[in-house]
């Protein structure tokens, strides 16, 4: 298990101090004793200073990644996705262990290069796929292993909210900076979760609402291989509206449901004796490699444990290549999503008036 108060804190640097660093990682880090935050690095010094101020940190502020060399043991990478590869390679060359935000890279080829570099350097690269560090997903995995709902018949995973992320530029929507749209955001989280539970997804079809820019809604339909059987699955993500925000697994003897908002509960729906029953299962008695309820804090606990014990983290980089490959396969068979409210309506301006 994790974080002993007697162990020396890991000296940590954060590279990229924008929204995800401030709202997710630093918020969790200040609750843990595992780390000593030594450096906040951002190409915009004011962003790094704002992060320090927000949490009252006395970390050194810099805009040069190389300042971390020799001064920290590990780093969290929260820069734009297309920068994950060069920044992580730099940090590995400095001999640091790395926790890289999702998506781990803009392509599976970049991610493979990072994985190879990590292996050659003998360093750990964990990836910010926090769904695997949420307690109810471990409960779910246990229930599946116990054959709780019989043969799995269908899997649906969805992640969608109205996008309300603080942004200082349009980089989120710029393919030259980011890797894609919502499929590289909420989409890769649910895809990673499905792959973690069931393995590869054979993509049958994919549709999204891109009209020349990045997609804000995307749906993958495909099949999983579960105990040698083909099982249909559907994976959806949205930046424009709320979706179910969790995973639903239907089986011969009932249905399991785990939501991102109910971090330590799995709901079981069963029909017994003609009556529909709903029960909720918590984490008691189920072994988990972390203690925190907040998945960001749990992920950081696990990263610290991996560094100290030199053991693989819950989200090693090698395990995060497959979701990227699945998105690449999905994009290759893309078809436009039906949006009748977009296409509707003629232009009703009389040509005669155009003087």
């Amino acid at each position, binding site marked *: 298990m994790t974080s002993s108060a007697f162990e020396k804190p890991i000296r940590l640097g954060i590279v990229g101090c924008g929204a995800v660093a401030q709202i997710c990682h630093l918020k969790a880090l200040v609750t843990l004793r595992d780390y000593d935050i030594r450096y906040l690095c951002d190409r915009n010094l004011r962003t790094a200073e704002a992060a320090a101020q927000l949490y009252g940190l006395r970390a050194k502020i810099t805009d040069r990644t190389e300042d971390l060399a020799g001064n920290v043991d590990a780093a969290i990478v929260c820069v734009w996705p297309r920068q994950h590869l060069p920044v992580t390679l730099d940090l590995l060359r400095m001999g640091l262990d790395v926790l890289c935000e999702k998506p781990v890279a803009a392509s599976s080829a970049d991610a493979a290069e990072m994985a190879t570099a990590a292996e050659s350097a003998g360093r750990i690269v964990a990836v910010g796929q926090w769904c695997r560090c949420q307690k109810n997903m471990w409960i779910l995995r246990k229930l599946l292993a116990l054959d709780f709902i019989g043969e799995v018949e269908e899997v649906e995973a969805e992640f969608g909210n109205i996008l*309300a992320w603080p942004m*200082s530029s349009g980089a989120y929507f710029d393919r030259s900076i980011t890797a894609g749209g919502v499929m590289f955001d909420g989409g890769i989280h649910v895809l990673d979760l499905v792959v973690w539970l069931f393995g590869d997804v054979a993509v049958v079809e994919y549709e999204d609402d891109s009209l020349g*820019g990045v997609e804000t809604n995307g749906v993958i339909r495909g099949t999983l291989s579960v105990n040698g059987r083909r099982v249909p699955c559907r994976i959806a993500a949205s*930046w424009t509206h709320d*979706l179910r925000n969790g995973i639903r697994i239907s089986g011969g003897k009932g249905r399991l449901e785990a939501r991102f908002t109910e971090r330590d509960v799995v709901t079981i729906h069963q029909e017994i004796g003609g009556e529909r029953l709903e029960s909720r299962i918590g984490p008691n008695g189920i072994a988990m490699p972390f203690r925190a309820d907040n998945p960001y804090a749990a992920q950081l606990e696990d990263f610290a444990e991996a560094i100290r014990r030199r053991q693989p983290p819950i989200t090693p980089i090698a395990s995060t290549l497959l979701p990227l490959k699945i998105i690449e396969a999905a994009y290759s068979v893309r078809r436009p999503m039906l949006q009748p409210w*977009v296409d509707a309506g003629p*232009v009703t301006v*009389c040509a005669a008036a155009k003087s």
Partner: protein
Amino acid sequence: MRCGKVLITGATGFIGSRLCERLSLHYRVPYRALVHNFGKAARIGRLGAEMVAGDLDDKASLSSALSGCDGVVHLAYGNNAGRAEKILLSACREAGIKRFVHISSMAVHGPNPGPECAREATATIGRYGEPYSDAKARAERVVQRAIDGGMPGIILRPTVVYGPYSPFVTRIVQDARAGAVSLIDEGKGVCNAVYVDDVCDAIYAALETDRGLGKAFFVNADRAVSWRDFNTTFAEMVRPLPRILNVSADAARAYWRSARPSLRSNLTALKRLAMSSDFHDQLATVPALRSAIRWTKVNLKKALSADRVNALKNIGAEHASPAAWTAWPDQGRIVREDFHLEFSNELAKTLLGWRPAYDFVAGAAVTRSWLEFARMLES
């Protein structure tokens, strides 16, 4: 005239986002979206639209955004109405803008306009003591002065704009999903509903034609509906059907008069803030306060009974009860729905060569398709 590139202010809003879709997909007019908050730009992000950061308070950002544009559609609306238009128009003059389309509102005629306001030629603009109306009127007056001073501009006054993503529609559906929708005075008020695509078409017409230069136009459907029809059409798309409640406009106004801030309500709000765990979390990011907060909490728990601790935690909770809030329509709704004038769209038809393509039934049907997609309705 045929506009070149057009700068759109308010491009991430409800009308602005749809206008960007129409410009990209249907009108094929090049444009640049001025974005104040990129967090709201997802809908235009999927168009691959050109986006630039800008702020209506910051003339330098506007001048930079206007570079290479010869038209402006001004949809943005904020707290600095009037001042924002002065800054924008000053930047437009320097940039040599050839067409300025200002999106005003029927609200410039106040919450209770007389029959003379039904047509543009006799419609008056005043000060009404109603914040939204006054702000829109202030902005329009600034634009009108600029037009009088030579800015080639057109003012459009859309009425009640609805369609996919409309806050008017989503409010009704959310209320209906919660179980009840209210009507004001049985919904007898006049709803000058206009579908968002018709407003976009009017904007396009104002960019294209020279015949309406210098004038203001109502942008309205051919026929108004009642607020009962508007509210119940969307409410009754929801299953199970919601209850329809009636609220008198006078009673609602009296409620809001009584709900104005008082010393007591301020004290209650302060107590609620002091007990808020989010507030404690934020304070605890200051290391010196973190231990002080922990010490206070531990000692309060020791010193007080469990009931007293719970009572402290629940301060103000009775005011946050959804039942208490949902019973009364907000003040904006009272202004909009206790309304009794139908606006004419004849001038826009005659001079802009524009025609509304949607009656309410058609507009509601398209809106429904979006509500189903957005999981607000069962499809």
